[in-house]
């Protein structure tokens, strides 16, 4: 029994968990929501994801090289892939490739690696990358496509893009000759709602105004939210995430929405609409739960999630942007260490007041 160099301290039992496993579970959980997005918004979504992943992995590898560390372990934990996927799911399916590159470089090189790589970044890289683009290129990052719902397309004289069209748009920025931007693009439901509310329309009028609206929120969007929710539940089941952040997040958003909606249902949209019409579900389960930048204590996670939800509502309702998941998450990232500090659990055998 030669004394083998290596691990000597207990426990000797096999490890039951690993970072790459966790990240792969996240990727898996993204599948249903992604398919729904592709279904409603076309191939651009997939092309963006592929581009983002390639950019992210290459960027990560290069940075590791520059830092003089082995690149393979950093790539093999799939954390860069998850960042890339989340980034790609938040940007519009028409975003020019070089903006994707810019966003990813910002996310991976500056937000993640300059802070020391995985585990050290105080901000969620995907959201930081997205916000960076949102501020620098507000038009390109808010131009969305209409959901592929026949009634809607017919009513507003819109068309959808084929795979080749999407690819050309992303790589060259050129639309097919027969189409104009007006014919292919549409505001997101939250954007549309904000504009119309600002014009003094009531909620009833807004919802009756266009086939953009479905049962609870934006057509197509509500299905996307549903499938992301399913993915989120899968992660809960596999214990990849815990319930605290998503539940508190959605509760914060819905509660804030409910208060104002009950006061004035014509000027404030219903909680359900807030829930299903933007990136709220994706944010609650996939983005706010990013462990590195979130709170780690259980009570802290409740506070953290709740405040993100409330902040989203505040920005959506009174702020300058129609959706605010990214901003809210980044804001609460800043507060996370402080929240952690004040929400430490009571240690076994210590008095409750301690």
């Amino acid at each position, binding site marked *: *029994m030669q004394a083998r*160099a290596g*691990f000597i301290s*207990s426990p000797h039992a096999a*490890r039951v*968990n690993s970072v790459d496993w966790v990240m792969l579970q996240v990727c898996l959980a993204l599948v249903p929501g992604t398919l729904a997005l592709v279904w409603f918004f076309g191939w651009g979504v997939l092309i963006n994801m592929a581009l983002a992943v390639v950019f992210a992995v290459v960027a990560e590898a290069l940075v590791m090289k520059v830092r003089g560390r082995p690149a393979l*372990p950093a790539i093999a934990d799939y954390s860069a892939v998850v960042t890339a996927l989340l980034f790609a799911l938040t940007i519009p399916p028409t975003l020019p490739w070089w903006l994707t590159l810019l966003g990813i470089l910002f996310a991976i090189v500056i937000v993640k690696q300059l802070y020391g790589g995985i*585990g050290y970044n105080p901000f969620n890289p995907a959201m930081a990358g997205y916000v960076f683009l949102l501020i620098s290129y507000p038009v390109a990052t808010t131009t969305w496509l209409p959901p592929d719902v026949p009634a809607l397309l017919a009513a507003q004289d819109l068309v959808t893009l084929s795979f080749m069209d999407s690819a050309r748009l992303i790589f060259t920025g050129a639309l097919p000759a027969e189409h104009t931007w007006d014919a292919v693009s549409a505001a997101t439901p939250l954007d549309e709602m904000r504009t119309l509310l600002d014009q003094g329309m009531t909620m009833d009028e807004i919802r009756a105004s266009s086939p953009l609206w479905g049962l609870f929120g934006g057509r197509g969007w509500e299905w996307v939210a549903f499938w992301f929710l399913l993915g989120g539940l899968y992660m809960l089941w596999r214990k990849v995430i815990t319930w605290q952040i998503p539940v508190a997040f959605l509760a914060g958003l819905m509660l804030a929405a409910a208060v104002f909606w009950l006061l004035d249902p014509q000027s404030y949209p219903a909680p359900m609409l807030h829930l299903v019409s933007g990136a709220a579900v994706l944010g609650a389960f996939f983005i706010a739960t990013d462990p590195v930048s979130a709170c780690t*204590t259980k009570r802290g996670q409740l506070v953290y999630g709740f405040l993100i939800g409330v902040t989203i509502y505040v920005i959506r309702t009174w702020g300058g942007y129609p959706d605010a998941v990214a901003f809210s998450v980044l804001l609460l990232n800043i507060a996370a260490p402080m929240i952690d500090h004040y929400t430490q659990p009571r240690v076994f055998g210590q008095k409750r007041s301690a």
Partner: protein
Amino acid sequence: MLFSVLNPHRERLWHFHGGIHLPDEKALSNAGASVAAPLPTQLVVPLQQHIGAPSQACVGVGDQVKKGQVLAKPQGYVSAPVHAPSSGTVVAVEPRQVPHPSGLSAPCVVIATDGDDVWGELPAPLPDFAQQDPAELRERIRLSGIVGMGGASFPSSVKLNPGPDQPIETLIINGAECEPYITCDDLLMRERAADIVDGIRVMLHILGTQRCLVGIEDNKPEALAAMREAAQQANEQDGAAGRIKVMEIPTLYPSGGEKQLIKILTGKEVPSHGIPAQIGIVCQNVGTACAVADAVLRGRPLIERYVTVTGRGVGKPQNYRVRIGTPAADLVAASGGYTGALEKLVVGGPMMGFRIDSDAVPITKAANCLLALTPGESPDPGEPQPCIRCGRCAEVCPANLLPQQLYWHARAKDLDKVQDYNLFDCIECGCCAVVCPSHIPLVQYYRFAKTESWAREREKRAAEHARERHAAKEARLERLEREKKAKMRKKKEAVAPKGGKDDDKQAAIKAARERAAAKKREAPEAAAQKEAPEQNAAEAGAAAGAETPKVAAPDGKPPGAQANAKTQAKAAEQQGAQGAVPKPVPDDGSRAVDEAKAAGAETLGAGPDERPGEGSDDAKQPSAASSTEQERPRASAGRG
């Protein structure tokens, strides 16, 4: 709550935070009855198998000893004697390698057995224990060498003497056996339930208590049934229904940790840094209860214990009744030898046991399991990755700590911060390390931080001591000076006497002050002495198998590698001292050599010292021979 509504006969159970479900692997070894391990030709009996002061050998080379004869006498209150496990001749009293995480050697009595296995003179059995004075029974237990057999090895007689200011309401008997693989308590409960219950009755009498709860995990139905029956019979016999209650608790690691079990069964929490007696509880292992029965009812000292030999690294996993001092290799051989693929040999369970580098080490009173793990059972966790702050560790921590914060500060060697995050409430259960997705050796970091903290504490105390000594010296010099002057003055005064009264007064005040200062100087020492048993108790309070291993600065490297390199460097240096050419040391050996040189005696001395009262004599003489020569047989033994 729900349980008590649905099932009124069931006592209420409580929960502790966290814990994990692990594959229990008990079926490997709990199928058959236990067998008596073959009597080895040589028994290697360590003099210190307990927490506390090492005992003193009272036999010499060449002495004939009988089974049960005292080999070493306890030194001090927190100590335990050691008895001959069989008859034979003492062939050596020398340091041998013992199963200890430090890997150091410690003094042992080596007996060449004669095969007759005859008992020596034993103290009289005390079947009427209920009429005996508790103090007498405690003394019997003490002289029988009984220590906590769950792994903590704290002298049982001390635990059974909580003192008049700590009335004990409940005796808790730990039959949880929550670690995977281990089944020795399971088999013991199946086969010796009546004896265990007798031991419980003795202990209840000693403590003057009328309530005993036996906690057994629900994955041991046969043990549960046997214990229930035995308890019921005893209760009927004593005319005290419900005095001893056997409780089925859910299987969840580490429910067998002392603090956790107490919480589950009573809902009470042992105070942080405290011991169970403070909340009116004494907790003993089932093996200890059985040994108490043997000692009191039969007059037999502790010379044998149940040991599980298991893991897929041995041919035929099984439970044995093993004489203390039997070499581990003998048990492996009895179990069909190694199967070939051996990753490591562990004493204790896979969660809290410690690796041993040689199967020449003997079985001790605290060794409940010998675990031969294959690479498949104990895969190399690989390079640790950065913490992703996922919080899984905090979710499973039974002490409700924040392991990731502890890790963070332990890595930064911020000893104040780790204590702010309650490092010393960590029971080293390993839950956090097992679930950590980044495969960080968290427990290693905590041990490192604990060791460092103790070292710092010692330094502080030493510095204080030095300062006080300095002050005392100054005072003494001053006094001498004053006395000289006073003498001179007196001489003068003898010539012209006047105003002597004032001086006298001042001298009296000074003398009083000095007396007070001297007392103060003594005080810290007294305090330190008082602290020792306290710390012991706290250590015993940690879950079974708590240990203080040789801990290396993790330094971002797999800590084990460095620790090993250090050991090797140590060996190399010792060889060097003997004039031999130092062995080439792999990896970062050269650095380790430097370190070892720099750390020098510290590396060697620190190990035993950390564990209060551990063979510090030995630390001064870990002979080069013992650490280098034994490395070689080790190499062959493992591959065999």
